[in-house]
């Protein structure tokens, strides 16, 4: 032990190697390798008769996605829903976080911050399942209480996705507001800044990276979802549903379709990294 310890002490490189090798193998070789495998699979094609995957390189899957209009519609719809969900979540996250961080008393803050963050951890499937029973056009709770229901479709999809990812938006925004010193708000007020002016010129600029961090999850998770979409969306198809539906019959096509949200998210994440938002996650 002591000899090994001495060796490690003298050779920091060896120490680093010992620490890094296992996680590197897992995350870089296995995970990034898997993403590469996905990329490779997307160029394969399907044998029309046997349904087997033929390991031959070709662009036919991408040609299909580009030329068949259904795919274009699905991509546009998904991006629009993901954008709507993100806007709704941020619009709610800002006032709620502001209340938590700047208005509520310490005691209320403690209770509310738990009340707002815990639902994030409650099973995603259970929450989607509960919403399925809520919006049910037949005898759902919403129909019973309010007389009308969004039913199964695009509206419910957007509402439920916004519900599911809201805590992911609140957390970074709340953390960002907690770091914002009260004195800045007071200074703005002393200089004659009206509440709305202070909000636009002080709060929002400081919150920038936190808002980007929050949007990463709301946007990304919306783009890949298919279970909640299937439960409350009726016939609504999103990118996730297309990937899932093709997964069994046509693996290569599913792989090619899944590259769309991946490409969008990678660009988004790399952009977000520039703003320093990833440290806020």
């Amino acid at each position: 032990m002591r000899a090994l310890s001495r060796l490690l002490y003298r050779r920091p490189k060896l120490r680093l190697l010992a620490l890094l090798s296992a996680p590197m193998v897992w995350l870089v070789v296995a995970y990034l390798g898997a993403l590469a495998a996905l990329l490779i699979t997307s160029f394969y094609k399907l044998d029309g008769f046997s349904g087997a995957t033929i390991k031959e390189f070709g662009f036919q899957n991408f040609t299909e996605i580009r030329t068949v209009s259904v795919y274009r519609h699905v991509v546009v719809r998904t991006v629009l829903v993901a954008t709507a969900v993100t806007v709704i979540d941020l619009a709610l996250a800002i006032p709620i976080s502001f209340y938590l961080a700047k208005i509520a008393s310490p005691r209320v803050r403690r209770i509310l911050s738990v009340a707002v963050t815990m639902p994030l951890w409650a099973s995603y499937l259970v929450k989607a399942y509960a919403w399925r029973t809520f919006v049910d056009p037949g005898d759902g709770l919403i129909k019973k209480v309010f007389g009308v229901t969004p039913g199964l479709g695009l509206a419910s999809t957007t509402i439920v996705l916004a519900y599911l990812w809201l805590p992911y938006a609140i957390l970074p925004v709340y953390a960002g507001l907690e770091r914002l010193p009260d004195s800045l708000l007071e200074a703005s007020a002393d200089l004659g800044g009206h509440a709305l002016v202070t909000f636009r010129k002080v709060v929002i600029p400081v919150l920038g990276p936190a808002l980007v961090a929050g949007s990463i999850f709301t946007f990304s998770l919306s783009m890949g979802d298919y279970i909640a979409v299937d439960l409350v969306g009726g016939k609504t198809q999103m990118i996730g549903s297309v990937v899932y539906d093709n997964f069994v019959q046509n693996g290569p096509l599913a792989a090619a379709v899944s590259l769309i949200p991946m490409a969008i998210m990678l660009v988004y994440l790399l952009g977000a990294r520039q703003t320093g938002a990833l440290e806020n996650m």
Partner: protein
Amino acid sequence: MHLSKTARRAIAGLTSLVVVILWAPIIYAGLLAFNTAKSTTLQGLTVKWWPEAFRDPEVREALWGSTRTAFFATIIALILGTLLAFAIQRFSFFGKDALSFAVVLPIALPGIITGIALNSAFRQLGVSFGFKTIVIAHATFCIVVVHNNVLARLRRLPASLEEASADLGAHTFTTLRHVTFPMLASSFGAGAILAFALSFDEIVVTTFTAGANAKTLPQYILGNFSRPNNLPKVNVAVLVVLLLSIIPVWFAQRLSESGPGMASSR
């Protein structure tokens, strides 16, 4: 910033409303486990489905499957996440930023991408699907939780304590065992609990990496909830998943002073 009384009230009202909406589906789903009727409409309360659900071999197998998967995924995540946190906090090396980025990817990318990517990789390598593949997949997205918790704690630890231990003649491993690890213990605990909770209720990645035979509790729920006869058992399973994803997190929150921020999230 001076907000009028009306504005304050409005913001307070909005916050309370959202808290109610956030909890309503969770509480409703929990109550359904006690529903007298075989439906998703709450009619009366009973515990009569509980013995039936826990006697059901399919439910038991799924519960055992989820527990086993979460346990092994947590162990792997605990080891890899800790090693990585030490490397990132104590060293600077080429590709460090890229590596910090790669840790977040499995949770920042939609689950379906992680799932289908691992599926392609397993297929190309000829690995047969089963519990092994679910564990590997779950561990991949659990690493970040442990990593973030341990890293946050390491950053707050004063280096002076380890130096003092070394000055007193302790070698690296003695210091680790008697000084560093005890100070990290609660962050290990918080990270492990969160990883377990994350794995226990995961469904998307599981669907793509499970194969035909391995079943987890969320898979049981998804597969059976459109079968009216199985609905009471599904509702019991729902409550089990709910409790096992929420209660541990409450404990984890008490262990890590910072609370389960995004840093520790899925």
